[in-house]
């Protein structure tokens, strides 16, 4: 109910923060990575057999499961000939000592909406093919489940969502007098275009140093954080989430995002073979 920002709080000790910042200043990171190095990334599809599509993404110790459920609904008034996408994120109380029980908080809501916007503006899913008739369209419910939060939830959740959608089997829509129903015994692949996959890349800044894929402790030590989502050659979504960037730093972040995008896309493509 409360819509005021923020909820909850996270801590890092001043000493630990100083150490992290000093290290980055000298070109290394608390977990031994170089500034532009990703943690280990892996993606597995079809991890939940009750879902119509599912995937798990691991980014270091950050772990997100995405489950897709297909339903029926009405189109939005301004896009009467398109299916509907609804992205929801839950940061499970399992995920960290900071996570609380309750309806999605501002962090979970932002996570869901950033992933949603990337998918929506990229053309990755062909929503036109999800219209059934005048009043009925497919509804894609994408639930992003954060099981362990070691930072950079967006990049991991986005990969999980893409892989889950790519693995989604669409139940056929059966019409009879009573209306339209889904037949889950009869499924076809969700129409999607991998070449348009929107890849989210989060960039951190400490002083004027740019790093990629910040872990949880780094997130609590940054001077700036931004997520840049790229599909084909376009930026389809951005979200500055902490601190600030100068124009200069912004260009650097964007250039870096394009190159990291290529790496993450490769991991995604390999996982879908």
């Amino acid at each position, binding site marked *: 109910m409360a819509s005021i920002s923020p909820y909850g709080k996270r801590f890092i000790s001043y000493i630990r923060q100083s150490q992290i910042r000093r290290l980055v200043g000298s070109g290394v990171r608390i977990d031994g990575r170089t500034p532009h190095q990703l943690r280990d990334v892996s993606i597995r599809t079809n991890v*939940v*057999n*009750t*879902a119509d599509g*599912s995937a798990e993404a691991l980014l270091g*110790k950050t*772990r997100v*499961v995405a*489950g*897709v*459920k297909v*339903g029926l609904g009405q189109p939005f008034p301004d896009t009467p000939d398109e299916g509907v996408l609804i992205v*929801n994120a*839950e940061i*499970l*109380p*399992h*995920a*960290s*000592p900071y996570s609380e*029980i309750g*309806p999605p908080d501002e962090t979970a809501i932002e996570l869901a909406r950033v992933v949603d916007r990337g998918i929506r503006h990229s053309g990755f899913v062909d929503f036109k093919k999800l219209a059934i008739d005048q009043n009925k369209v497919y509804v894609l*419910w994408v*639930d992003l*489940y954060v*099981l*362990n*939060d*070691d930072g950079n939830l967006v990049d991991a959740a986005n990969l999980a969502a893409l892989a889950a959608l790519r693995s989604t089997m669409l139940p056929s829509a059966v019409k009879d007098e009573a209306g339209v129903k889904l037949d*889950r015994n009869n499924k076809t692949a969700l129409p999607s275009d991998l070449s348009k996959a929107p890849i989210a890349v989060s960039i951190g800044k400490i002083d004027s140093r740019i790093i990629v894929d910040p872990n949880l402790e780094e997130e609590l030590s940054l001077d700036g954080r931004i997520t840049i989502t790229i599909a084909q050659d376009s930026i389809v979504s951005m979200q500055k989430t902490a601190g600030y960037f100068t124009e200069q730093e912004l260009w650097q972040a964007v250039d870096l995002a394009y190159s990291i995008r290529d790496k993450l896309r490769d991991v995604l493509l390999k996982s879908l073979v």
Partner: protein
Amino acid sequence: MKQPPVPLLVEGRRADGRAPDQMRDVRISVGVISNADGSAMVSYGNTTAVAAVYGPREMHPRHLSLPDKAVMRVRYHMAPFSTKDERKNPAPSRREIEISKVLREALEPAIFLEQFPRSRIDVFVEIVQADGSTRVASLTAASLALADAGVPMRDLVIGVSVGLVNGVVVLDLNGLEDNYGEGDMPVGYMPNLGRITLLQLDGAWSRDRFAEAVKLAVKGAEYVYGKAREALKAKYFEIAEEVAK
């Protein structure tokens, strides 16, 4: 009476091929969530529960803490994609609230809560895939997560379900049997102390069938306990190996 889509029992075999007193495939792993103080993932066939434990830790707000023991909080919840057919609404249902209570009261007798006054122990269980027997898989997972967290316990609490299908008492109901069977009895059992800490039942059971069901539940719990010990040992050896490196 609702008609099942396939016969539940044919010549002593259940629809998935099991004998009446047979568990589904039991898979257990401990320590699956690195941030948590303890965690476990437990699958009974296609039912999968993930449990995490945080605590003992400070209780907020203070006036809800107890002067002589820890408060244990338990949440059982089902993922929206965990059910067959339609997406489940993520808002907690009355059923989920009841099960959270039942699980808490099944775990409390196993924990030395009096060792941690004014603090709290949080147990979170999420059902990732549901195919019957979710609350008992949750109980086993929660119990192992508590052990993994090093919370002092009198015994593990192992969950199994027993049901009544075509008049026959069967172990470890799957979703089909849960929907179309005549009765359901989830049980939580401490294998070393012989104590029953979770017991629910519905359907229509004669006293004899009930007695039979309890015996079968105990047998099932002992079987799962064996698997649970293996999983805890595996985690222990893993740590030992890491230390040895």
